[in-house]
């Protein structure tokens, strides 16, 4: 644990306990009205919900290095990354509740969160956050600023063209981009070895002549270290890196997933490993006492509870707002009139 301060460890711990508790609370809210028989369209929080319990370390370990002007794109399982990137928790929660004061005024929902203050976005189409991350890197490079972009994806997304094409594009242009694969062993019901012959997603990097690194445990400190090198390399204009992080899926793919395809031992094993507990041990080894950790945790809980209470109090959007925001300019573009020219043509 060379290059990391106790303050940084605490900050990651804070992000991780916030994310874990946030999702526990969201789960409770989501299940309201959906029991005993699960009905996805019932209750105050409809739609799909993909929770990231077991992924927290990769959000915290990478985003600890990032500034507000660095861009992050996340996939359909975004909450832990959003929290670590500093997305406004209240407005994100209001968005997930579909409220008017949500990040997207209720138009996006949990898979489509956009917070322009901290350059965060996510998308529900597999691997499709990769090209825009390369684009953010391209913009930074053209403008000669030292911001970077990070694209998160699942291990199931490494077979998608958008990812592979983006690796090549970022490599050939030396873009300041870091690709982070969160390997939770499952793509819904499909285990890794059913869909790819490479053992590790990080091996994909070699075909594009960029560094590929794998972090074998969801150890926030090890992730922080690997991400530090990659992000430093990007900031110094030395090009992209691919990082793969082993994480775990403690829950179903989405809420309501019966997980009948998943061996019980696997499910059990995922809940045994706990990156949060591991980081707490690291902190204790640094002499941080349990009371301090408890304080971080209880403050995180308060923040989450407050955000959820706030969100539930927010107004529902007026149905008529559905018709707004298709464009930012009026349909006629930046003008609604055109000058009168007399266009003289050739000889006639």
């Amino acid at each position, binding site marked *: 644990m060379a290059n990391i301060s106790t303050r940084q460890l605490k900050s990651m711990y804070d992000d991780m306990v916030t994310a874990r508790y946030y999702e526990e609370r969201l789960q409770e809210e989501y299940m309201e009205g959906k029991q005993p028989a699960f009905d996805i369209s019932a209750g105050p929080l409809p739609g799909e919900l993909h929770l990231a319990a077991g992924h927290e370390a990769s959000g915290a370990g990478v985003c600890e290095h990032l500034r507000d002007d660095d861009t992050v794109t996340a996939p359909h399982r975004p909450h832990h990354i959003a929290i670590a990137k500093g997305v406004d928790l209240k407005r994100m929660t209001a968005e997930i509740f579909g409220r008017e004061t949500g990040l997207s005024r209720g138009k996006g929902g949990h898979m489509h969160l956009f917070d322009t203050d901290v350059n965060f976005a996510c998308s529900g*189409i597999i691997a499709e956050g990769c090209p825009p991350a390369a684009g953010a890197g391209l913009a930074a490079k053209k403008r000669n600023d030292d911001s970077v972009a990070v694209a998160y994806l699942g291990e199931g997304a490494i077979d998608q063209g958008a990812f592979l094409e983006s690796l090549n594009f970022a490599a050939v242009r030396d873009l300041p981009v870091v690709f982070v694969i969160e390997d939770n062993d499952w793509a819904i019901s499909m285990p890794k070895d059913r869909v790819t012959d490479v053992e590790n997603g990080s091996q994909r990097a070699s075909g594009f002549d960029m560094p590929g690194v794998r972090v074998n445990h969801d150890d926030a400190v090890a992730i922080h270290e690997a991400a530090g090198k990659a992000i430093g390399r990007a900031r110094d204009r030395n090009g992209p890196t691919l990082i793969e992080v082993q994480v775990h899926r403690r829950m179903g793919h989405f809420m309501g997933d019966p997980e009948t395809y998943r061996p019980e031992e696997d499910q059990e094993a995922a809940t045994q490993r706990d990156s949060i507990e591991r980081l707490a041990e690291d902190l204790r080894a640094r002499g941080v006492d349990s009371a301090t950790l408890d304080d971080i945790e209880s403050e995180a809980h308060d923040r989450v509870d407050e955000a959820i209470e706030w969100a539930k109090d927010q107004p529902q959007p007026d149905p008529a707002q*559905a018709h707004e925001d298709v464009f930012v300019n009026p349909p006629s573009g930046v003008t609604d009139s055109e000058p009168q020219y007399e266009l003289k043509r050739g000889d006639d």
Partner: protein
Amino acid sequence: MSQERQRPAVERELTMSRAVVEAIAEEMRDNEEVFYMGEDVADYGGIFDSTEGLLDEFGHDRVMDVPISETAYLGAAVGAAQEGMRPIAELMFVDFFGVAMDQIYNQMAKNTYMSGGAVNVPMVLTAAVGGTYNDAAQHSQTLYGTFAHMPGMKVVVPSTAYEAKGLMHNAIRDDDPVVYMFHKRLMGIGWMPAPQGPKTPVPEEDYTIPFGSADIKREGSDVTVVTLGLHVHRALDAAAELEDDGHDVEVIDLRSLVPLDTETIIESVEKTGSLVVVDEDYRSYGVTGEIVASVAEESLADLDAVERVAVPDVPIPYSRPMENEVIPDSKDIEDAVKALE
């Protein structure tokens, strides 16, 4: 269903997903060359139960989980079909079509024509469509018009279990590419309760429903409502309500968009003089405009009044009040019928 079909009495009722699976299983038993590819179609049985139970009978070689690489596996279906096999490839949500658009639009749909008929592509592309459960803009579209627009693909949309089975048998046996678009809300999935209508009696034996044969789901003399998929049921609900107000509404279920049965529509409009077209796809450049234009071209004199009910030209919003605003419900259909007067 109010129409009297001349057919033996059938009592066994199935959900739409069971009917789809029954047709696929029967075809797989009959023909070794039929196989299914998709994400989570093996052990999971399809996120929307489209392959539930097939793995047990046919194993992983014929019910294939594939990498999340739509271009590769839809394109592989095109290639295998051109070799004479009969692949069925599934888009888990139709919204993911964009990832594989070239294989769909430029290969699957065009190879027959570009080869002067020398090549054919006997595959089925299945896709789950539709909203109503707040899954937002990337997971709620129907995109009927997007697929029906490009020449070279037959496009079918079942509204009940009976249709689902007959259309699937025909789709697999057809020597051309068929896009089979099933509405999630109709499948009868435990966690997404279906309305009453789609669970119907389904014959045990196999049968085919020809494409381009619209079905009159309800006869009426005042107004013709033309629709498809989920909105067949919403239109029937609206028709039942309108009956109390003295409107006698005819409801036509298109069942296929390509080919399109304009004849049944025009016959109906000749009788009623008024046309309402209802679609869960976007309003512009789509199914509603196409139907109205086809009727106008052939039978303008019969057409006294027209209304379109469709998703206004906005992506599907997440939040419930806004989603309800843009996806037509039976009240919207009632209003449109009343507006004709």
